[in-house]
């Protein structure tokens, strides 16, 4: 049916053309066309009498407008003993104002087909709104309403407190959260960047009066900037802004001095114990740079080579070559006042030690050897190539401009971004790697089964501390698995039964043993896994069966206790949330 509708078209231009394709032409990727220039226009900047900075990018491409009212105050500016106050305040802005209830606000905003919201990060609080430019005036009025006249109604606040406390409980079941909590504490110490979450007690304390007082103290025009991108007329907009925000009184901005993050001079190991965990969440981290540091460009190029994506060294090593993990990366977190460098992966527990070895190998290598010119060029190609895609939508463009403004980056930052990337040399990459990656001073954080992780990771650090998932410190001695008598004989064929969601599933384990080393095969309905590095210590068996599916490693982790011809223990697989108990006998 489709062919018919194009029959007439086929008889036109292309019927007589023949493709000039040859096997040789197809063999290699084609050369690109000539590059097309891309320029981001510079904003117009001014200030209202009350100190509110105004940044305008007029862009008529589409009839849309985006507003961001950004305050240079964020979670780190929570008053002492009131962690979570800034976040609560921003969440509550749209839940009721002097003139409108939560429902009325929702109706007004959505009736215009628009959106208004607010969120807080460590350094900044941003109230955003976007709409068809037809409604730019109406949406500006609503923005003024939620910023200047919120009332924090008791019933809405009560719902917020209850919902937030529920979420906090859920958070502590996430290994990623637990790893982040420890890393932040170790890298930032007494600096407020170390606080990643309020506690239930903090949330319960929050009341209307405190919120209202905090709001009027921190939401002042001289600590804020109003950024507009889109289909606006500059003069009309400024006039309207003066009308709605002109009477907004400036206030005192107390810039607290924060304690400096700690200087480190040794490697530490911190384990958060999650018994039975099939994977270890590894974070290796040290203090990095703040956003405006002059080393920023060489650092992001270095990071791209080292561990920013699927072609990077860390990824190719730990995942593609060794098969330890689904994903291993490095990351630069550069905030306003300080930042950090992190290398992370979730690896199967039995290769925790091996993974640390590879991480340190790569961290040492990027410092001791210059990267290859090809590697450098690929990294630059990605960073410069993806830049226009980031700016394609109004939302994307607005984000780029907001960042440039909030971090106080140079006026021509966006215009010269790609040139700066391209100017980075292999020497620069090495220099910043040596300076900002300090393997002898890192904090190693591992969320996993402490009994399994401790012996593997201990040798990589000068000191160790262990916590449970609630953050209570534990005694290291509890996790040391001593020599518990003679090595059990585990060789042979075992018939095991796994309790899988109420079903009894048979699997078999065929093992060969040489002293404390065990090899063999695990045969299950999900596939067969080769065991290459199992260990017996006393009566305990720890082994990982590795199956390969489409180049991706699937590991089954076996932890068992052997008693003569009986075995019992747990089997973990990445696809199953909890370890599965098994029992069985040798045949």
């Amino acid at each position: 049916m489709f062919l018919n509708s194009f029959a007439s078209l086929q008889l036109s231009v292309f019927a007589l053309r023949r493709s000039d394709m040859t096997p040789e032409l197809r063999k290699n990727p084609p050369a690109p066309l000539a590059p097309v220039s891309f320029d981001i226009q510079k904003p117009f900047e001014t200030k209202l009498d009350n100190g509110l900075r105004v940044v305008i990018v007029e862009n008529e491409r589409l009839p849309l407008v985006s507003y961001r009212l950004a305050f240079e105050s964020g979670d780190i500016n929570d008053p002492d003993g009131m962690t979570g106050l800034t976040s609560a305040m921003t969440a509550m802005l749209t839940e009721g104002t002097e003139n409108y209830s939560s429902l009325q606000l929702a109706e007004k905003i959505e009736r215009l087909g628009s959106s208004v919201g607010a969120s807080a990060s460590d350094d900044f609080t941003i109230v955003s709104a976007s709409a068809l430019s037809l409604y730019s005036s109406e949406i500006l009025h609503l923005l003024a309403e939620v910023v200047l006249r919120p009332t924090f109604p008791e019933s809405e606040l009560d719902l917020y407190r209850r919902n937030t406390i529920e979420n906090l409980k859920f958070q502590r079941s996430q290994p990623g959260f637990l790893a982040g909590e420890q890393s932040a504490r170790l890298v930032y110490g007494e600096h407020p960047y170390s606080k990643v979450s309020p506690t239930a007690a903090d949330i319960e304390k929050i009341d209307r009066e405190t919120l209202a007082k905090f709001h009027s103290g921190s939401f002042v025009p001289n600590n804020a900037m109003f950024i507009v991108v889109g289909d606006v007329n500059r003069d009309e907009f400024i006039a309207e802004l003066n009308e709605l925000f002109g009477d907004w009184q400036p206030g005192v901005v107390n810039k607290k001095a924060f304690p400096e993050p700690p200087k480190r001079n040794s490697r530490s190991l911190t384990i958060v114990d999650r018994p039975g965990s099939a994977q270890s969440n590894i974070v290796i981290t040290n203090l990095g740079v703040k956003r405006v540091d002059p080393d920023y460009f060489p650092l992001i190029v270095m990071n791209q080579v080292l561990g920013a994506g699927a072609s990077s060294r860390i990824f190719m090593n730990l995942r593609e070559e060794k098969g330890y993990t689904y994903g291993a990366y490095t990351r630069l977190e550069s905030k306003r006042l300080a930042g950090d460098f992190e290398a992370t992966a979730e690896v199967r527990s039995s290769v925790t030690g091996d993974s640390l070895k590879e991480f340190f190998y790569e961290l040492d290598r990027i410092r001791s050897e210059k990267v290859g010119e090809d590697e450098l060029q690929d990294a630059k190609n990605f960073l410069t190539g993806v830049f226009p895609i980031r700016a394609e939508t109004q939302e994307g463009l607005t984000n780029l401009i907001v960042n440039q403004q909030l971090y106080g980056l140079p006026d021509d930052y966006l215009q010269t971004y790609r040139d700066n990337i391209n100017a980075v040399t292999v020497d620069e990459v090495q220099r910043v790697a040596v300076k900002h990656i300090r393997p002898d001073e890192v904090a190693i954080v591992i969320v996993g089964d402490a009994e399994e992780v401790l012996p593997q990771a201990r040798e990589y650090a000068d000191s160790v501390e262990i916590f449970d998932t609630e953050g209570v410190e534990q005694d290291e001695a509890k996790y040391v698995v001593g020599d518990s008598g003679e090595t059990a004989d585990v060789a042979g064929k075992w018939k095991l039964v796994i309790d899988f969601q109420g079903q009894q599933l048979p699997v078999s384990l065929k093992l060969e043993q040489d002293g404390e080393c065990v090899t063999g095969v695990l045969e299950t309905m999900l596939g067969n896994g080769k065991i290459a590095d199992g260990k017996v210590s006393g009566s305990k068996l720890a082994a990982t069966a590795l199956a390969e599916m489409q180049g991706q490693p699937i590991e089954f982790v076996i932890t068992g206790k052997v008693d003569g011809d009986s075995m019992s223990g747990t089997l973990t697989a990445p696809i199953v949330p909890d370890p599965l108990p098994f029992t069985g006998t040798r045949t």
Partner: protein
Amino acid sequence: MSETFKLPPLEIEEYGLANGLRVVLNPDNSIPVVSIAVYYNVGSRNERDDRTGFAHLFEHMMFQGSENVPKAGHFQHIMKAGGTMNGTTSSERTNYYETLPANQLPLALWLESDRMRSLAVTQENLDNQREAVKEEKRLRYDNQPYGQIFDLINEMIYKNFANSHSTIGSMDHLDAATVEDVQEFFRIYYAPNNAVLVLSGAFETSTAKELVETYFGDIESQPLPPELDVTEPAEVAANYKEWEDKLAPFPAFLIGWKIPPRRSPEFYALYLAGKVLYDGDSSRLYQKLVKGEESVIQLFGFTDERRGPSSIFIGAIPKPEKDLSRIRETIMKEIHDLAAHGPTSEEMEKIENQLINDSVRMRQSSMARAQQIAEFALYDGDPELINSELDALLSVTADHIRHAVGKFLNTENRALLDVVPAGKG
């Protein structure tokens, strides 16, 4: 408002290659990026009843390398060129897309054409991908709380196997697939005359046409795939099912209705009815359930748009100790009210503005445009519809909505899936 608001039309040029490949060009030089979308006219609805999961299996196979592109090469090439990419499978079609800096257009066409003509369909790749798909099924469906509810509701709504079975397919069928089955599937469905290629973004039309001809022109067409019957009776296949979910921490439910195909007048009216009911904080159900009764943790609603009979779902995860049947009563009460009185004029104004807002936003992104255009080209044979779709939606009146809700939603002809946590059924 709609009279005062006019969106300039997107520039669309469509033509066909001799081998039947339909090509649509949407030049737009605002930003120097280009998006390429290839849509193959094959989805789970085309699958044989003993070979479910094939369309999706194929999506995986397509990244396993072709004659001139090594395994995982597609992704690596795109990344090194500074681009982004992905692919998806649905009941209706399988699509592949990437966004790149404008000067990398030849690379995308080389990659897409190489896999269209010479995908490496080998026993090894099949075995690898089969296991990956089975793994994905476990990870995303079998072992996620509520992971299976959409597949289950589809089986309750649709009687025709083509419509009712899941896209992920069955483990047994995947295991039974031979390399010959897969090669045959590739031959029939992954042919140029069974596909649409869309380019949207910054390019010279004449250059683009030359490149498309160079890379795709020599790929041979194939006989058209077999005809497909997706007709349905008016009644849903099953009205009630209780499902025990061992991973669900709380009970939940999902209600599903069968509705007419996409782009029918009733479909448009029901799509808008859905917005009134569950879309956004000011929607009726959000205000009644999340706010008012404070009885749900999560409320969701969705219109499943298909070329054949389609569907609407509304579901909720209640807070602990809340009564599910009371929540369902509230939902049906709102539907009843909408069927009796239709939406208010404020709600109509909201819908109108949301539609225009969505339409304008979509235009910003070359990828969003490419995908929308590809759908109209593939499903309707008319990519120009992207320029008239908004008007079609804006012409729906409150009365149309009232009438459609009365006929299709305010009825006993619906499916209710009750999800109970393990041990509590």
